[in-house]
């Protein structure tokens, strides 16, 4: 299994972590927009979510339906152990890099 993750994938994993246990496509898209100041289409979120599930970083469970969804049930996502490990590792690598770097002199 491919362990590496892309930028958007990392973002979505982080969003899932913060929104848990209410993380599903629409709430993720809304949160994404709030933080990034940039909207994202529903299918784009879906694509990333499915990819992460197939990589084993996310797990999904069926939720309740609401009237605006035409009664169709939501699918909630949560991080798996591997998923957590992967973003944690990214975070650690970054912190190391930041710690070693000096502030560049802008000329």
């Amino acid at each position, binding site marked *: 299994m491919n362990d590496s993750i892309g930028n958007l994938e990392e973002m979505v994993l982080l969003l899932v972590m913060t929104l848990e246990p209410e993380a599903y496509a*629409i709430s993720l898209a809304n949160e994404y927009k709030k933080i990034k100041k940039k909207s994202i289409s*529903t*299918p784009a*979120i*879906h694509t990333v979510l*499915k*990819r992460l599930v197939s990589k084993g970083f996310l797990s999904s469970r069926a939720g309740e339906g609401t009237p605006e*969804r035409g009664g*169709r049930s939501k699918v909630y996502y949560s991080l798996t152990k591997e998923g957590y490990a992967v973003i944690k590792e990214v975070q650690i690598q970054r912190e190391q890099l930041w710690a070693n770097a000096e502030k560049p002199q802008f000329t």
Partner: protein
Amino acid sequence: MKLIIKILGNILHPDIKDEIIGDLLEAYDQRAKKNKFIAGLHFILESFISIKWGKMFYQNERLWSSQNVKFSLRHLRRNWRETVVHISGLSLGLAICILLAFFYFHEKSFDTFHEDHTSVYRIVNEADQGVQYGVTPWPTGPFIEADFPEVAATRIYHTFRKTPTLARSDKQEFFYEDDLFFVDGNFFDILTFKLLKGQTSEVLKEPNSIVLSESLAQKLFGSENPVGRELWFESTLRLTVTGVVENSPPNSHLQYQAFASLGDIASIFQATGNRFSFEGWYWTAVNTYVRLPHGLTSQQLETDLVDFTQRHVPEAFAHRRNFKLQPLADIHLNSDEIEDIFVEKRSEVEIKIAMLLGIIVLSIAIINFINLASASSSNRLYALNIKKRLGASYGQIFTQMLTEAMMVVISSLLISLLLVFGTLPYFNELINVRIGFFDYFQLETLGWFVACALFITFVMGFYPASYTLRQVSKDTFGQHIKRNTITQKILVAFQLFASIFLIYGCIIIYNQFSFLTQKDLGFKNENVLMVPIRGTEASMNTQLFKQRFENSPYVTNTSLLSDIMGSTVQLVPFRIDGKPEQQNIATMFVDFDFVETFDIEVVDGRDFDPTIHSDSNAFLINESALSYFENGWEEARLNRGNGKIIGVLKDFHFMDLHLEIEPLMIGMSDAWRNYLALNVKGSNFSEIYEDIESKWVELEPNRPFDAWFLDEKLNNLYRSEKNQSIIVAVFSILSVVIAIIGLLALVTEFIQNRYKEIGIRKVLGASVNQIYYLITRSIALLFLLVIAFNLPLARLIMGRWLDNYPTHIDHQWMYYLYAFLITGLLIGSLISYKCLRAARVNPIEIIKDE
């Protein structure tokens, strides 16, 4: 939106279906709070993207594989009866549609083959009464060239009311060549017909040069090189062949055999015995074409031409010389209102009707396929369900069904092309065009063709496939689900609608045609032999010829006249006492025997009388012309030779029936004797013809005898109506047959759906009649509903067609009733047969299964 959700539901994998649709809907809901429209657009876009990725992730299997072809072939072969019906219906429909599309594009392509054709215009001469002529005065072209040096102008002259003769200079074999045109030297720069021999700017530079078409050159000189050879024109003028031009393209409004130089007009006139002046602005006889330089628009030139008229045309008739510009490509289709001499034209309504017919026929064929395919889908639910159970995805089943549709479409297309190829010659002959099968097979059209095929496949395949899928997804092993009856009814309604409309159209066109050909023209046209005599010995020596002919035992009377009765008549300006302006009135010039020869009733006054000397200046008028003489025609004085009016004739159709009866003056003049009409008796026409021909040859040895019977000529005028009615009839019948096959399939399915119900009803004591009533009721209601919508529309469309003809049949309820009865009886009897069979079935047969 509901539709999209449905589609998504059908296509997406059930595991992810709810999540995706739910999320999309919620996103829509959020966005809709701001702007509904944008939210809708987002929804549609996102739905499509969802389909795409949904497939990527949830179907590891391929959607389309070559297996599909195998399965489809197997299915089509197993149900070969159905396949034959599908393919034959569709290929017929397609063939008709392709033929009509050929026709449409052919007509639209007229004159577009000329280089830079958008900058070429024809000068149209508008008279003050709104009458437009395609012909202009002689000086128009040269004066335009002088006043606007950047504009190139050319004239085309067709020997005035006379079919000239040609012959090789070394052989005295004269023949008539009607498609010979005299043109200015720069002709080929403006109308760029391709020269096969000779230089564009050289060939017509010298006077008395002639360019032959390929076929005429072949006819005259065989395989010898014609360039440099000489021809006799009218046995007095020598013309030298300087070039060969391609045969006239089928989509040219000008159908020619030869072009000769207008360099020496006087000698041409002399040769044809024409004594008019070609210098004044009075006589309009030539078509003038101009090529505008880039940067000069037609509007600009039109404005300038107003001043031009003021400058050059004498004041007396300047108001009748308003020059307009007509784009070259418009001449063929948009000249209904313009009076022309040699222009090939067609009414645009005609080709629109052809296109409409094509679209109707194709729709019928497509709907038929949809009906038949969905009707038979219940038979294959078992197979599809098993496939599904064995692990096929919805997408795979969907694409397999689309593959089937595609195979039907492709094979129908190939068959229809063969059909078109085979029938094109007959089609061409019927509607009097020359369309080549390969004319329209360029890359662009092929692209369109493929696009259309894909589109038809999609339209045809989509509904049956998604409908079948819906049934599969309901997981109904063997259980029968009723079809969505609304869709079914709409489809049936359309079939009925189109069938009634086509039959109605057929009846109207047929009636109009027989009306035109059988209408009493108001004058005798049977057994009248017309001899063209303009510019011949006979026109100089009329009395001698008349006497000779009258000596024949077959000839009863003869009359000289200026025009062919029943086709067209020249307009002549008159100044009438009490009217301030000059009036253009249709005028024929005849001799003393005219009224007797054509057996026209004199309703008031008297006929011309050879014993009264002043009658040679007198006029007869028709009833319609009475409107000019409110104070009584007896006292009226005319400006022509101080003539007076001596009698009134009953109205007769002196013009073609496409035009209304207008006021007519009939006078006497020597200069206008163009035809000699012979009233013949007897039944052996070839004997009569030979007898008269022998008399002609005695007097005029150099000129072939070229007479024709008036009624034949007049019937030819209505040939296009006749052929139109044949084509519409054939195509309509074919498409009605296709429609009925489809309806029958639907009814069969409809009855099958209710088989069990019928059985139970019968067990409970319903009679055959009651069951019959039960089944047919809904179809009958639908039929009535269709009629309610159809009637106004059919009347409107056919009304517009009929409006093309000033003399036309009126709408009668009877016609619609016929259409209604024919369709009703045809469909009714078929349905009744099916229904009664169902109703008669022993109920045990039906319900024994349970």
